[in-house]
């Protein structure tokens, strides 16, 4: 698959955080733009 660029809204939430992690672990994803109301991404 060609490289994808992805936007995530709500990446600090319960499901959004897991989506963000999955995208960051995916080699087919070139870049991820996370949109949030807060700057903190829990680890």
């Amino acid at each position: 698959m060609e490289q994808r660029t992805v936007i995530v809204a709500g990446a600090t939430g319960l499901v959004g955080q897991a989506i963000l992690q999955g995208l960051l672990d995916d080699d087919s994803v070139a870049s991820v733009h996370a949109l949030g109301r807060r700057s903190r991404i829990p680890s």
Partner: protein
Amino acid sequence: MHVVDFQQLPALPKADEVYLALGTTIKVAGSQAAFRAVDYDANLAVAKAALAAGASRAGLVSAMGADAASSVFYSRVKGELEQALSQLPFQGLVIARPSLLVGDRSTLGQPSRRGEELGFAVSKALGFLIPRDYKPIRGTDVARALLSAVPAARGKTVLLSGTMLR
């Protein structure tokens, strides 16, 4: 990470895909109107901005029972969002409708949701009686299901908990 005001969303960077996972509760938001501003308005604004930025596929974290005709406010808002997104020209739209979500909200800096904890306890005791679509599901399982379905999505797909559970 872009910190944005969802009521005045800037133009988004060019993208292929968008995941919509904004959500709150009426209790945290403080009112039904404030809840709707997040769960409906903000998610829809991001979807439209992503389309304008070239996105052709979208994944949504909705909820079991989402129905624009529901008499329950929460389910109605979720249903209205699903309906509004369905009318946008995405090539592929995947809607996840998880039942009760399981996961540690405290590590996210979120207050616990007592209904979730109570429901999970009941379901552990009576799990054998509960149909798969109604069983509690981990946030990570919902994420995994969306991540695998969205890249190849065509038209509209709805995922219930039973198909997302592992």
